[in-house]
């Protein structure tokens, strides 16, 4: 069957997207539609002495100007972080209060202070400008290491010294001893730069309150509408779950930033009840830079010890992670269980110890961003492996191979149990595709043109399919991370699949349909994927962490198993055959070894007419399933980047990028390649271009595309993407996940290539032309001194 698992089926959803017929949150228009604008803090840290709303309230078209005291007075709860981390001294994390609208203090530029509802977006904005907030400006701090210094401005009373938690994993003493006894120790200070997520569609919310039913409807740009409803109900007390419908229609990219429940959705829902208007807010790009949760922002020092045989004997890391002004929904988990648990990389390391301190600063909250913790771990390990190889004078690929985990399952000292992989196969494939061995000739040729050519490698591993609910629960998660599915077969044999996963660019409407097509031999056109509406799908945990294949599709498979079993029972009854002899293929239901056949639609119709069902069988053909993963999945691979640097300007051109990935079973190679391309683009963006920069007073300097460098097509190379797969043993399809790998594996490959080209390992992301040029000058200065 040409549309089943492994087929390059064109994306079903693209017809509406490329013809401009997608339906996004901002496209929703309700009766009595009003528009919200937020009054936001212009200061990084200030006390609110008072708010004068009178001028704004008197302006044309204004329905209401509502502040934080009214919000908390109505019982709307504080925004919470849903993952409890315990410090190494046994104390719980120090979470500061976060009201959707600030009451006494503002803690970052962009912090929401009041919501204005008016009859047009322009009138709402004008009225928001007319709200007069009396601020007493306070000292502020934006750099994570400075926030921990004594005398730093105190941001939340709950977190003394701005420390949220001081957490560790692994054996400290054993690791220190191993490093002390090492033949060679690689030591590096490594910063992982703060980036802004920049989904193409900005965040948006349309909230409507039905007075007669006491019921709310929220359209919102969410990666996980059921989680949004749960949190809005259980924690923020906006409405009970059965009185709140959350719909995430077409969503134009998420990258993590649309997982969280932000102040704006809460305020719009509450304001819709206060004003009896349908309240719409759509972020502009400036607000997006200020308020969409940022990613990364780690400062680390690390030591990696090797024995005389170049085997890693110990790896110790000390990290400070910036969580910004407030703890966003999953923020605490990112620099701990999504980061430090991956610090073994692809390597067999007996001793690892990582200490993580997270801090409050007067900056935009930081949370998961494509990769979430795993890119930070990968960047640390893979820069150190490359640097160690250079300092040891050995080939970077062979140093990696010498330390690869070779046998599976493999238990690392940092929780993770790798289930399957063939790291050497991906290394070999990447080297062959890159003509790694022929590099020196290319370097010489480039030198003849005055260019510095370099090559860099990254052998990444990550953890997807997050994760067994009991396991994440024991680590502090406030939710389980299973997924649900319902397969509804119609009387004519067409199928609707309701899934708790949510697509915002991933192509689920195609790939999920392929799984159904593969099972019954039906065209994908006969399958409709339904998602993103809490009134339609019973429950789901949403899409992030590359989990929709490994977890979401597994739930669908479980439901399909039940549908298949019932269909076979009906067919066996109708064909007077043994149930075990029934096979379903190419849209037909047959008795094996005979010419007895029914059309798939005939069996389905039989289920619904119910004229002739097996004794005691219920009519209908609809099954649901919940799937709780047995383990994380572990995509892995090797990326090789080759660059040419212009020594006069410091400009880097990526002249070759090779990716060899192990994603397990691949449903649609075209879509997987697209995910890898996009992921690498995002990783190259972080490596070469992107950084959210604050000035000393806490103003965001990169608040528009004039200063925030998003990668453009001409910044990127053509990629060579291939796969060397091992099957994941822990889910029914053998899927590992592919959504984040590109963003995880690429940054160290790019930086390793540049540092190779310029002969200076001291280079941080983003490797802008100015920074690379300065690093080249530093080498020249050092050589001149010698």
């Amino acid at each position, binding site marked *: 069957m040409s549309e089943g698992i492994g087929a390059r089926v064109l994306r079903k959803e693209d017809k509406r997207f490329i013809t401009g017929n997608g339906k996004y949150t901002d496209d929703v228009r309700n009766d009595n539609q009003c528009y919200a604008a937020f009054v936001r803090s212009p200061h990084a840290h200030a006390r609110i002495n008072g708010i004068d709303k009178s001028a704004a309230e008197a302006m044309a078209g204004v329905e209401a100007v509502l502040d934080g005291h009214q919000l908390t007075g109505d019982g709307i709860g504080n925004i919470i972080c849903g993952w409890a981390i315990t410090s190494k001294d046994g104390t719980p994390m120090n979470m500061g209060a976060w009201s959707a609208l600030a009451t006494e203090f503002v803690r970052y530029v962009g912090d929401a202070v009041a919501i204005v509802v008016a009859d047009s977006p322009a009138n709402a904005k004008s009225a928001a400008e007319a709200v007069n907030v009396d601020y007493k400006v306070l000292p502020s701090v934006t750099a994570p290491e400075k926030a921990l210094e004594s005398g730093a401005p105190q941001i939340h009373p709950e977190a003394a010294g701005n420390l949220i938690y001081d957490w560790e994993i692994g054996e400290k003493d054993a690791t220190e001893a191993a490093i002390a006894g090492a033949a060679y120790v690689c030591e590096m200070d490594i910063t992982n730069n703060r980036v802004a997520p920049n989904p193409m569609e900005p965040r948006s919310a349309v909230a409507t309150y039905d007075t007669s039913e006491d019921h709310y409807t929220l359209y919102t740009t969410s990666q996980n509408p059921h989680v949004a409803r749960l949190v809005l109900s259980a924690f923020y007390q906006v409405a009970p779950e059965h009185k709140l419908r959350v719909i995430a229609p077409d969503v134009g990219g998420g990258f993590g930033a649309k997982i969280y429940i932000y102040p704006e959705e809460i305020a719009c829902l509450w304001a819709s009840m206060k004003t009896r208007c349908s309240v719409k807010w759509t972020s502009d790009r400036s607000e997006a830079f200020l308020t969409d949760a940022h990613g990364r922002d780690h400062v680390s020092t690390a030591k990696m010890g090797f024995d005389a045989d170049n085997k890693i004997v110990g790896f110790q890391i000390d990290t400070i992670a910036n969580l910004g002004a407030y703890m966003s929904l999953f923020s605490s988990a990112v620099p701990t269980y999504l980061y430090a648990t991956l610090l073994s990389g692809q390597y067999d390391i007996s001793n690892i110890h990582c200490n993580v301190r997270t801090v409050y600063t007067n900056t935009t909250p930081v949370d998961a961003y494509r990769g979430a913790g795993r890119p930070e771990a990968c960047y640390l390990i893979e820069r150190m492996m490359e640097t160690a190889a250079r300092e040891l004078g050995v080939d970077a690929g062979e140093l990696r191979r010498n330390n690869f985990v070779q046998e599976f399952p493999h238990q690392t000292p940092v929780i993770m149990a790798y289930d399957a992989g063939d790291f050497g196969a991906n290394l070999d494939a990447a080297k062959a595709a890159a003509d790694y061995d022929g590099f020196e000739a290319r370097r010489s040729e480039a030198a003849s043109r005055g260019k510095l050519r370099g090559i860099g490698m990254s052998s990444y591993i990550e953890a997807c399919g997050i994760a067994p609910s009991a396991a994440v629960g024991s680590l502090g998660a406030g939710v389980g991370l299973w997924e649900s599915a319902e397969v509804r077969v119609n009387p004519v044999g067409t199928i609707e699949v309701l899934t708790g996963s949510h697509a915002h660019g991933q192509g689920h409407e195609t790939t999920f349909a392929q799984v159904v097509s593969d099972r019954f031999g039906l065209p994908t056109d006969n399958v409709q994927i339904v998602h993103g509406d809490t009134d339609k799908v019973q429950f789901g945990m949403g899409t992030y962490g590359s989990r929709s294949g490994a977890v979401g599709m597994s739930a669908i498979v479980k439901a399909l198993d039940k549908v298949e079993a019932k269909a076979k029972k009906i067919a066996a009854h109708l064909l007077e055959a043994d149930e075990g002899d029934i096979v379903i293929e190419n849209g037909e239901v047959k008795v094996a070894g005979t010419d007895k056949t029914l059309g798939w639609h005939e069996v389905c119709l039989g289920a619904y007419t119910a004229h002739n069902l097996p004794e005691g069988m219920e009519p209908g053909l609809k099954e649901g399933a919940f799937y709780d993963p047995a383990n994380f999945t572990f995509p892995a691979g090797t990326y090789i980047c080759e660059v040419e640097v212009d020594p*006069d300007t410091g400009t880097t051109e990526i002249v070759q990028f090779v990716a060899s990935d192990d994603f397990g079973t691949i449903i649609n190679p075209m879509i997987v390649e697209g995910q890898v391309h996009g992921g690498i683009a995002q990783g190259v963006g972080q490596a070469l271009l992107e950084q959210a920069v604050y000035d000393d007073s806490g103003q965001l300097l990169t608040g528009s595309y004039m200063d925030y460098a998003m990668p453009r097509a001409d910044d990127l190379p053509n990629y060579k993407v291939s796969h060397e797969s091992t099957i994941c043993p822990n889910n029914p399809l053998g899927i590992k996940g592919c959504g984040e790998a590109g963003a995880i594996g690429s940054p160290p490959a790019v930086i390793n290539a540049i540092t190779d080209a310029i002969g200076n390992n001291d280079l941080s992301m983003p490797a802008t*032309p100015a920074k690379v040029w300065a690093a080249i000058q530093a080498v020249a200065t050092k050589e001149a001194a010698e």
Partner: protein
Amino acid sequence: MYETQYHRASSAEDAVAKLESADDGKLLSGGMTLIPTMKQRLAAPSDLVDITHIDALKGISVDGNTVTIGAATTHAEVAGGGDEIGNGVAELAGHIGDPHVRHRGTIGGSIANNDPAADYPAAMLALNASIMTNKRTISAEEFFVGMFETALEEDEIITAVSYEKPEKGAYSKFPNPASRYAMAGVFVAQSGDGARVAVTGAGSDGVFRHSGMEEALAGNWSGDAVAACDVDEDAMLSDIHGDAAYRANLVKVMAKRAVEAAG
């Protein structure tokens, strides 16, 4: 964007009249800077007077060695001018912004705004261009006063720019990785009067001529001659994209590349 009144002027005189009758009017000549600024509510003119539909302000004419470009001529039209309009100018216009900007933005709008990172000011200064207005003719030297500052009076409208084709001319730009405006853009021109080197993007007070490079080129028209010149770091911009030392280096490298491109 705040509410504003849009007017379409039929002539320079009509534009002046419309401007004078407005509370706080602004000329619109493409709006590639003004409109985004208004959308961010950082500018709020009561009236916009669009001068891009005035026929007399549009088009390129070449008379012998003299090139005249109407103020409302788009970057795309200039980019299509080829070497006929003087070496380096069409190339410069072809790398301003993106296709949308090039089909809407105009040469008059660009130089009237005098953004310190805009490209055209370097060409005007290096080509010793004359800036013609509804009132007078101003030399480029006098026209560009400082960052976002020109010699234009309140009711003065640029109608055209005019310059002699250089014997040699080229522009070399290093784009800002984010905005793609010039971090350093150098236009070099050689004519009967000697060599002129104008720098945009890098200077802390907008476009400027580099006399040391001009002198060096007078004796030796070569890339190495300009690369060996000193560039005063104290006169350079410094920001998150590059410090003064880096920009000073870029000025030398772009000057060298421009000289080499000019041949």
